[in-house]
């Protein structure tokens, strides 16, 4: 009997242990979620107060929301952010897909060397090059208008994008491409009709990561978008915060509005994002 019961008891303890572990993990995650969500909670609560109510801590009001648009051109600035984001990401994707496919699948001289050069550009932080970059862009007279900022963002995001697409396309078997060629495609056709549909997770990954990065960025917007009418939302908020009579509830309302699009994009693409980031781990 004891011979039979001993494996049984092992199983019981191990399953009990699993329940304990799972519960512990669950509570740890709840705790983390609270830590993460608390700032949003504070923003939300604070935004429904007047400055006075905020200082005294009592009462609620929708005043800051009603006045938000008049103190801060939120809609224009959201639009500006969107334009800059979309244009930059479009460039980053187009360049990334094409360069990634070329690096991964077309054989040419010094290809690997060029690839290494590109990828090592990922290591260069913006802060290190921002001054010379500014001088360059200013000389071309691009500090007024979206183009300067778009180009800078594109330049910053492209190396990562190329890297991701290259590793992605390297996993596409050569035979698949050859099958496409025998089936009547040229290289453009292979890229457009075979490689691209397979690269959708990578496209989603690049889009989300770059969207969050560019949308939340302040430095480039501050430097390269000097025309107030073209300010992105982050710069607008910063200007509001730096003002002499800052209304904290209004700032919170503005922050919420500016955080929302990045969160929506992230939540919407989250599933693909995770798949894309663990690329190359399997197999």
């Amino acid at each position, binding site marked *: 009997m004891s011979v039979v019961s001993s494996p049984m008891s092992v199983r019981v303890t191990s399953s009990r242990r699993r329940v304990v572990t799972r519960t512990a993990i669950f509570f740890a995650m709840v705790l983390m979620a609270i830590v993460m969500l608390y700032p949003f909670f504070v923003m939300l609560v604070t935004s429904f107060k007047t400055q006075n109510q905020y200082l005294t801590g009592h009462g609620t009001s929708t005043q800051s929301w009603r006045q938000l648009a008049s103190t801060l051109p939120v809609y224009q600035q959201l639009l500006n952010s969107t334009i800059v984001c979309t244009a930059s990401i479009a460039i980053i994707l187009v360049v990334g897909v094409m360069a990634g496919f070329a690096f991964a699948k077309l054989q040419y001289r010094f290809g690997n060397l060029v690839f290494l050069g590109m990828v090592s550009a990922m290591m260069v932080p913006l802060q290190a090059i921002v001054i010379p970059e500014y001088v360059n862009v200013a000389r071309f007279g691009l500090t007024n208008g979206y183009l300067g900022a778009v180009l800078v963002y594109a330049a910053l995001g492209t190396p990562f994008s190329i890297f991701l697409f290259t590793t992605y396309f390297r996993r596409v*078997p050569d*035979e*698949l491409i*050859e*099958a*496409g*060629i*025998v*089936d*009547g*495609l*040229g290289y453009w*056709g292979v890229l457009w*009709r*075979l490689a691209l*549909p*397979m690269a959708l997770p990578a496209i989603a990954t690049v889009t989300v990561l770059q969207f969050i990065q560019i949308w939340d960025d302040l430095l480039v917007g501050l430097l390269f978008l000097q025309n107030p009418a073209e300010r992105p939302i982050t710069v607008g908020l910063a200007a509001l915060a730096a003002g002499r009579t800052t209304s904290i509830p209004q700032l919170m309302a503005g922050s919420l509005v500016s955080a929302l699009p990045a969160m929506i994009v992230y939540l919407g693409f989250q599933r693909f994002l995770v798949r894309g980031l663990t690329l190359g781990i399997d197999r």
Partner: protein
Amino acid sequence: MAEIVFDRVVKVYPGGTKAVEELSLTVAEGEFMVLVGPSGCGKTTALRMIAGLEEITDGVMSIGGTIVNNVLPKDRDIAMVFQNYALYPQMTVAQNMGFALKVRKLPKDEIDRRVQEAAKILRLTEYLGRRPKALSGGQRQRVAMGRAIVREPQAFLMDEPLSNLDAQLRVEMRTEITRIQRLLGVATIYVTHDQTEAMTMGDRVAVMRAGALQQVATPQDLYDHPVNEFVAGFIGSPPMNLILASLQDQDGELVLRFGDQNVVVPASYRTSHRLAELIGARVVFGLRPEDLELASGEGGVLLEATVDLREALGSEKLAYLSFGADSGIVEQEIPRDDGVPVRRRSRVVARLGARADVHEGGRVTLRLNVDNFHFFDPETGASLRAVAS
């Protein structure tokens, strides 16, 4: 449908590997041609040159009378089945099969019609809506075939299409592919290193070695009259026994000597083979395993041997024989000009009946089938058979 002609086609890879040497080969309209040979002999390279996936270094390749050396793959009207199938993962079976037609902008109902038809031939109708990853290996293989069939191309190219399947499925698909090829009558070039596939499927078989074509013939012809030691040792399973023997003329009788054995060669071989010039020297004596049988009683050409090893395969028994210490049958690697040596095995194999009474370590007497002797030049490996006139 069209004839495919290699005219002294050469392929040298960048880096200097000469993968194919002056290959001249004609695949007739509707013919099933099998390219066979050991690994690295250039089969895949030859196939890829037809498809246009590999540039032709020298020589002329034509399909249906048109020289295609500089024609793009998409304009060659060739369909290819890849070893790992290379199905498009994001497309359904139907989309996979119809893709080439869609690229060529055929009307949608025509595409549908052809896909349906091919699916029926391949028994894939119920899977048309599935993605490749939801199919078994055999079904994927059939989809790959289907992708080729719907094209109605000038030729099918297949590179070891069955090597990823298990043994039973492979046998099944072997007959399946043959059936479909006969049905459609499209010229097919089929690459394999499996000589059973080569023998069972091909109208003709082209044996390659180290980039060079050795022999093109019907399977039976290849089996009965291999042009050299390499083909003899490659085709057949187990392959032909190749024994280095000395050839002597004893009182007007040709005698082969190896070890303590004397084998009398029937006089007819004096005319059918160029043996005269090698009398007093050595020849390679070739004998198929099935041309040895257990002797009951006297008469005929006999061999005495010790059974080293016995393999019972159910339907037959293989006996691995030795002829004493100084038999002259030793494992040999014979260097050849092209750098790839030919191997002669150390033991003679006999294919015996399932009930044959043989034991490991026992002595046996075997009768040789005197009608099917083969002789090769020990220097060049070439067959000594006088060309039939």
